[in-house]
């Protein structure tokens, strides 16, 4: 009897050991074990926190100008990173700049993931005419080079944060929709979807309960790889004068206004780009790690 009981009690233990945490848990643990990704996460967290708490930790007022102390070089007394062309403290403005620049990198990707994901999943699940109708339109927007579409849309709509958010979202919807469509097309013919259909579940229920659960991973992973590009393009729009309007602190806009001073104060002019670069590299490596974490499952 004891032998039989042992055999029975062994089985659930073995199962338990294998099922530690869900899919996202495992992915998160994989990312945490990756040292490069961990460093990137810390860098991003530092940038994000310093942007959020900028009003409390910044050494100066980001909008206070002074003609007396403009374009001071970095490491000047009282101004750690110098001042910009209007005498505003660079460090303060770089901290504040993260608020606009980071949100403008993340928000369009989130919006595009929602819209593009919905379009792609709908197209992939229903197939046939619905697929054709949706994907035809998506492919038209996919036929523009991404930077060109962003600049043209922002240029047509007029400069401003909202308009550049709209144009960036528009740029990222097509690639996400295409990924969502192709993943969903693979999932919709799986046995468990067939089984759900056989039990009489409605299309909406199948999509939410069975399809989404299985396509979210790839879609989110793909979308995360776009954040770095989004930061670069959105700062690029501000750099062209199409995004944030002065005197708002934004890394791209700071590059734009300081560019005129490039011969006088080259280090100051180049500084905001370091922030864009740091954020974009970190997002890129983090999403790489996420991708390899996802592949572990497959």
């Amino acid at each position, binding site marked *: 009897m004891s032998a039989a009981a042992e055999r029975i009690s062994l089985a659930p233990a073995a199962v338990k050991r294998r099922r530690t945490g869900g899919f996202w848990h495992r992915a998160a643990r994989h990312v945490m074990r990756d040292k490069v990704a961990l460093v990137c996460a810390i860098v991003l967290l530092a940038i994000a926190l310093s942007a959020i708490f900028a009003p409390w930790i910044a050494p100066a007022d980001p909008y206070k100008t002074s003609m007396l102390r403009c374009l001071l070089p970095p490491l000047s007394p009282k101004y750690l990173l110098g001042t910009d062309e209007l005498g505003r403290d660079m460090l303060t403005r770089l901290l504040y700049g993260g608020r606009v620049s980071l949100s403008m990198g993340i928000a369009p990707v989130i919006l595009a993931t929602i819209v593009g994901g919905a379009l792609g999943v709908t197209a992939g699940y229903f197939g046939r005419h619905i697929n054709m109708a949706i994907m035809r339109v998506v492919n*038209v927007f996919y036929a523009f*080079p991404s930077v060109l579409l962003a*600049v043209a849309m922002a240029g047509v709509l*007029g400069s401003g944060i909202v308009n550049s958010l709209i144009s960036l979202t528009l740029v990222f919807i097509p690639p996400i929709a295409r990924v969502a469509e192709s993943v969903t097309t693979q999932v919709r013919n799986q046995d468990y979807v067939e089984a759900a259909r056989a039990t009489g579940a409605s299309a909406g229920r199948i999509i939410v309960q069975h399809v989404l659960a299985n396509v979210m991973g790839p879609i989110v992973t793909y979308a995360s790889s776009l954040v770095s590009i989004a930061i670069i393009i959105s700062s690029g729009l501000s750099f062209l004068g199409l995004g944030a309007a002065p005197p708002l602190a934004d890394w791209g806009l700071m590059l734009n206004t300081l560019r005129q001073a*490039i011969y006088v104060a080259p280090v100051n002019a*180049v500084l905001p780009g370091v922030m*864009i*670069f740091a954020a974009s*590299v970190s997002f890129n490596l983090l999403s790489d790690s996420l991708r390899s974490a996802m592949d572990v499952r497959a």
Partner: protein
Amino acid sequence: MRKREAGRGTRHKFRWDNRMHFYVLRRLLYTLPIILGVTIVCFSFIHLAPGDPIGAVLPENASAQVVAEIKAAYGFDRPLPVQYLKWLGRVLGGDFGTSIMTRRTVISEVAPAVANTALLAVTAIGLSFTFGITLGLLAGFSNRRVTDRSVTAFAVVGISVPHYWLGMVMVVIFAVLLHSLPATGMGPAGTNILAFTGEDISHLILPALTLATIPTGVLARSVRAMVAEVRRQEFVQTLKGKGLRRGRIFLHIVKNAAPPIMAIMGLQFAQLLGGSILVETVFAWPGTGFLLNAAIATRDLPLLQGTVIVLAIFFVLTNLFVDVLQTAVDPRVRRA
């Protein structure tokens, strides 16, 4: 005997057979609606823009009657589909209208700009193909961790660097500090490559290097990944087992990794044509990006439309060409 065996198995003769004709025709047909869609998007620009489409040409105190007359003269009083078809008819005939800014025809503004951008893009893509493929092969074939890691790191930097900022850094280093290269503009020869002098080349170096960073990173990374993947396949073991020389094995691997790399190269080139806007702005390079910027700054919608259409159609056609080329080279794609 050994010589004859080497590599014969995987080699195939490329034939432009009937199936290929059919494929190209199908791809062409598939491209047409996309180009049509692109023109619809560009047409809608005029109506997406805030304010009246004729605002730029109206005097400020125009009476309602004058406004109506001008609207009728431009055809803005007609229903949208009619307006679109009329406009499309003109565009197909190469007439993109007149630039509001310069009063010259849009096509005469866009054509030289496209040539300038193409010169820059071709130079940049040449640089990035050379560097990217070399680095990728180096990392893919190297068994040393250091080489692999450093190429990967370089590639990640190349992909995530904001290229307009890199351009500024280059200007700071080479123009401001070293005084060795010009910071902005184009040499006196323009796009006439035959008349190129040292000065023209020196103007081209910085923008081309800047523009080349992204594709170099992308290529290095994908070549490395593809080579590593092919190297793991079983046929490589077989080749090693039958005692093939390393150079031969190298050729086998490269051949198998080539088709997807070619597709990536084509895509990168296409992206460069449209993506040079920011770099052109940094270096005041008189290309399409510069023109687009000027059109936006002066709200010159016909010029903006014309530039975008030309670039987008270039993009679509390049993609088409890449697809066809890939199918021609790789028989597996055709079979699928």
